[in-house]
């Protein structure tokens, strides 16, 4: 057997570009979903400007601003987590993912207190107090609870998704090179596997490879170092990241429309 390396392709093939394109198609349906609700908001706002103005004054701008900063920060940590995998920095990727999930939970906790206060004051869909409000304000709060609610569900889904991604990355480092009989292994027949150090001293020698050997696996049980990094291994994480950023973008529009325009 010559000393030239036989390069054997890894068994897995992932369509990195295709999966990213698919997730973008899904994200567009999300934008259309919220776009429809934004349209409803715009039409009712143009008809009941004064009532929307009063409704927005009832919302807690401070809590809304804090939640905006929380989501923006979670978008940063999400991007850093993905950059971490690109730089081969597993520890950073895991920490940043954990912070992202914590931010998502923080957002939901603040939302809980915000909604709790509103419900305590008798403002919730179908409540007697809300029914006595002017028509425009009823519409404002109806839209607020619907849109912030659907957005909140997206945050919850994102938190679950990113928790799953955390454990995916945690369980990562595994790369396996397989030399399968009939696909290059015949070149190794009669040879012996050995691990040789810098001085050329064999550290370990395997048994002779004969026709009974069907496969030689080289398993790596460590985090792939930078040069071993394959962007395809993290396409799920990147797609989850795209989803998380679109949740942030939707909030970027919800925040001024419900909390600020007074």
């Amino acid at each position, binding site marked *: 057997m010559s000393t030239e390396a036989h390069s054997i392709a890894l068994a897995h093939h992932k369509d990195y*570009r295709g999966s*990213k394109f698919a997730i973008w198609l899904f994200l567009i349906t999300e934008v259309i979903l919220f776009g429809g609700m934004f*349209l409803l908001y715009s039409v009712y706002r143009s*008809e009941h400007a004064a009532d929307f103005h009063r409704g927005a004054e009832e919302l807690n701008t401070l809590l809304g601003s804090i939640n905006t900063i929380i989501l923006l920060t979670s978008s940063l940590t999400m991007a850093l987590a993905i*950059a971490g995998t690109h730089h081969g920095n597993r520890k950073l990727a895991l920490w940043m993912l954990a912070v992202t999930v914590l931010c998502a939970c923080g957002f939901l906790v603040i939302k809980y207190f915000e909604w709790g206060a509103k419900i305590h004051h008798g403002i919730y869909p179908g409540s007697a107090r809300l029914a006595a409000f002017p028509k425009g304000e009823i519409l404002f709060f109806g839209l607020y609870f619907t849109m912030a609610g659907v957005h909140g569900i997206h945050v919850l889904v994102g938190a679950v998704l990113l928790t799953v991604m955390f454990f995916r990355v945690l369980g990562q480092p595994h790369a396996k090179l397989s030399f399968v009989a009939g696909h290059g292994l015949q070149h190794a027949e009669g040879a012996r596997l050995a691990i040789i150090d810098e001085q050329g001293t064999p550290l370990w020698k395997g048994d002779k490879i004969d026709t009974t050997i069907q496969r030689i696996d080289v398993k790596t049980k460590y985090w792939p170092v930078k040069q071993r990094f394959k962007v395809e291994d993290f396409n799920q994480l990147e797609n989850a990241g795209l989803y998380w950023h679109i949740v942030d973008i939707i909030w970027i529009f919800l925040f001024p429309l419900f909390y600020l325009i007074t």
Partner: protein
Amino acid sequence: MSHDAGHHEEAHHEPVGYGQYFMTWFALVFLTAITVTAAGLHLGAISVLVALLIATVKASIVLWLFMHMKYEDATFHRLIAVMMVALAIFIGLTFTDTLFR
């Protein structure tokens, strides 16, 4: 997708440094501060316009840098363009109805 020739190359741009993401975050927080301040100024009729304009700038920054649209090719840019045009048609056409009733 019929880009088989560059299939293995397209995804491998140089990893983006961490610094750029911090700058992006800073810009987004800064714009949030501006939009909250602007809301406090009671600008009247243009307040909605200002708020939506700032929100659009923020969303574009997230899309371009956090969501890596900067590094995607024309197929993805076209996809986003189609989405924007579809939204504009939905909203525009509805208002041609509601505004002139």
